């Protein structure tokens, strides 16, 4: 027999044996393997993120002096505006502290904030999942909300040693309750991601909107977290209602699409709000038994 064909046959046999062995090995071994692969891949992800930053750095460094001067002027202007805002916020903070002292209102901090750089986006679902360069070693736990400024980015779904996976607001696995701007009665609505095709813009669906709700005139209504579900702090922004609400035939409710904040498409850095106390949902995500 042709030695080439013989070699090919041997490789097929080897592949079959490998597949059979893979099927037969205990699930713990397979899980370990998968986990080990993620950890093996992690340095590459770190390197990828850092090299992208380095590229950005050199790209910026190569700009002309005139460009840099113009950018410097713009920054100075922004800095000045921010300085004023900082003073304003400082005044508000002091007033807040004063009022808390008067009313003896003392709410303990519920979350610990961990800042993390975005390593990569999951290529299988471009808008739906990102990988960040912080993991179990940094105290991140599954289920923790992920924010950028006061905007919700998503939620941690899987945590590895040095990286974590975050389902974005537009991911079908994301679900939370929200309030709508302009709804005086604060009805809760449901926000969940919608699976979109590869070329479509990722969006989330806002459902169970009361029939008598109307968007404020002249601006898209903002959508905020309720803080009632025990996962997300209250009044964080989820995005805007896109293109108005439309009635479903089901009856008393309307639906709409959520246009996530613009920042979601260009994330470089996020904050993970790790709850100080574990909530039941987190226990479920870790697979605890409740028999």
């Amino acid at each position, binding site marked *: 027999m042709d030695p080439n064909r013989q070699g090919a046959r041997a490789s097929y046999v080897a592949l079959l044996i490998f597949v059979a062995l893979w099927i037969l090995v205990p699930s713990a071994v397979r899980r370990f393997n998968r986990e080990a692969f993620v950890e093996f891949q992690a340095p590459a992800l770190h390197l990828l993120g850092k090299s992208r930053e380095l590229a950005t750095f050199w790209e910026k460094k190569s700009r002309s002096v005139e460009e840099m001067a113009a950018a410097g002027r713009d920054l100075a202007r922004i800095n000045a505006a921010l300085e004023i805002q900082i003073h304003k916020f400082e005044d508000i903070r002091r007033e807040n502290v004063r009022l808390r002292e008067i009313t003896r209102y003392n709410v303990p901090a519920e979350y610990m904030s961990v800042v993390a750089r975005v390593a990569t986006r999951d290529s299988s679902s471009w808008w739906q999942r990102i990988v960040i360069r912080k993991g179990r070693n940094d105290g991140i736990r599954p*289920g923790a909300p992920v924010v950028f400024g006061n905007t919700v980015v998503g939620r941690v779904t899987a945590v590895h040693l040095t990286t974590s996976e975050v389902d974005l607001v537009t991911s*079908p*696995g*994301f*679900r*939370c*309750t929200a309030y709508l701007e302009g709804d005086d009665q604060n009805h*809760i609505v*449901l926000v*969940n991601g919608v699976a979109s095709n590869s070329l479509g813009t990722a969006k989330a669906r806002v*459902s*169970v909107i009361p029939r008598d709700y109307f968007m404020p005139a002249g601006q898209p209504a903002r959508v905020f977290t*309720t803080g*009632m*579900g*025990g*996962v*997300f702090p209250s009044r964080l922004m989820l995005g805007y209602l896109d293109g108005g609400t439309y009635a*479903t*035939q*089901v*009856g*008393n*409710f309307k639906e709409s699409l959520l246009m996530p904040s613009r920042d979601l498409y260009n994330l470089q850095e996020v904050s993970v709000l790790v709850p100080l*106390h*574990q*909530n*039941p*949902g*987190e*226990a*479920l*995500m870790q697979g*605890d*038994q*409740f*028999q």
Partner: protein
Amino acid sequence: MKESSDMHVLPSTPVDRLRLYGVFFFFLAGFLYVIGGLVYRQLIQSNELKDQSDTQSRRVVLRPPARGRIYDRNGFPLVDNRARWSVKADLASLQKEFRAEYLRMLAAEKAREAVSIDREKLLEDARVRVLQGWLNKVWFVIDETNRNTKGRKPLTKLTPVTAPAERQINITELRKHLRERRALPFTLVNDLAFPGTGQALTADDGTKSVARFIEQFPVEGPIRLEQDIVRTYPYGAMAAHVLGYVKDTDALPDNVDDISEVRVESMQKLRYTGKTGAAGVELSYNNVLSGRSGWELWSKTSSGYNQTRLKYSEPEQGGNVMLSLDYRIQQATESGLAKLKDPQGNLLPAAAVMIDVHTGEILALASQPSFDPNQLADRVSSKYYDQIEESGGWLNRTTQGLYPPGSTFKVITATAGMRKKVVDWDDVLDCGAFFRVGNRDYPEHEPVGYGEVNLDKMLAVSCNVWNYQIGIRTGIEALAAEARRFGLDTPLLQTVSDFETGGQPMTELPYAASRGLVVPDREYKLRVGAGAWTDGDTANLSIGQGYLLTTPLHMACVAASIARGETRTAPSIIHSLERTGRHPGALPIGLNAEQLASLRGGMVRCVEEGTARVARIPGLPYAGKTGTSEYFKKGEKAHLAWMIGYAPADYPVVAFAVLVEGQSDTNTWGGKTAGPVAKEMLEAWWPIAVKANLDDKPKAPR
């Protein structure tokens, strides 16, 4: 060479050829048979086979639509729908878990060396254990008391044996579900907002439990969050007898015939439980409120579970109904009734109604005791059902309660007397302490009598002796005819067509009194076997006693008719801007101007200084007539307190009737007991009328 060898294999003898043709035709026949069968199946039998295949492999699931809303005349929702979030387990997705648990339990049984193993029971136990595990997880998430978690390890909440029923899988329900609706998801928590026997877990409206589940429970997996609609009555028991309530039904509006894919008659149709009207407007306008069912076409697995949803259509909400009620007047009316209590503090049975004099639209209609339709909208506890039954709360006393109208009937006696010209508006009669008819004295309610009494005074003080005299002079024929002219024997409320009810035609408020209405006469007394009619019977009838039976709504219509100077008023519970104010069968009252003015003036005097003076409202002159009649309750004599009237006195806009069933040991009198309720109704209505007049001058008051 090659050619010759090929030639060599061909059969050379005739026998061989025959064999070859034989084989050839055998195969040809077989081939034609197969082709023919294929053509037959594909072209001739295709429709039939497709139907069979659809029947076996597909099913239609019908989803109930949301019912329409019911509004009051100003557009306030009296009946609405709220979102109900329920947690359901997809049994098809749990098959592997059931199997694994079953095998584990089977192994345990075998290890125990059990003598006999009931595999069916074991499989059921496995299902229950798996579902219980998921239910525990749901409760672990929604119950905020689980906050007691320290460090990284949660303190899982153990389920004790004495756990509340709602935290346990109901085996009977699971069995029933597997038997009848295996393809549909099994309900773990029926209402997330109120998971514990209708109570919220936290001191809010239950939203927190819903939010906790939404945000903390994994999105993927066999446990689904479903959202549907449940009927809600925002004002609780208010106007319960008008609005009615809904009950479960499996007979959903069946519009699947519209769908070409599912016209196969034998195709299995599964229905979610929907709601249908059980009483009140919910029942009489059931078809309007019902809407159209949604449907889903599913392919199913060999074990009967749903596999893939092939097509679907959302349910379509039912139409809305706008009632003529004004919720502000309704609230005031019920608040007035709620103050009527016996010495033990129990609510007295009572009824009150207010109608628009011109259109006949009912502005308030209350019956006491009542019920809270919210408690009947979902799962009715037998305890609550029995409680309503015992208190007599099902009866709508305003339209179904039959009572002798007592002295409120005197307006009809007076009208009959004047129309028969046996008395005129300014005639004065001598009215002593009693009036002798035959050999029996018929008493006056004032021990010394009223002396000289004219029509005006009779109505003010409600003189009985004046009515005995006029009643006997008028005669039973004319008296009964007058009562009939005012429609006391005619069923009220329009009939709603069977198209709107979705069943039998019925009155706007179902089962309004019809056959029980009695305007007695000679023939009636003979028919019921009570003997010949006597003058004593006429005397009794003249003061609204005896065999006469009517409803509070009829008496409100009498008041409205007098206010307009007509004989009939057609009341309606539905608000319509196109209502003309013409009342079928209505005739002019048949009195001259002085007579009518005197009749109305006597009613005004009744409120100003007569038996209804306790209900006088400074700044709002109105006409009224009280009545106190006797009836037997549980074998003991008791009083019925009545008051009818219209307001304002000079330009009538509304008419009303109030009835209170006194207990045998209560001091119940028309003006004293029913008067304050009428006062409260009018005090609620008057500012609304004044405001309407300010907002839109030409409209009201008329």
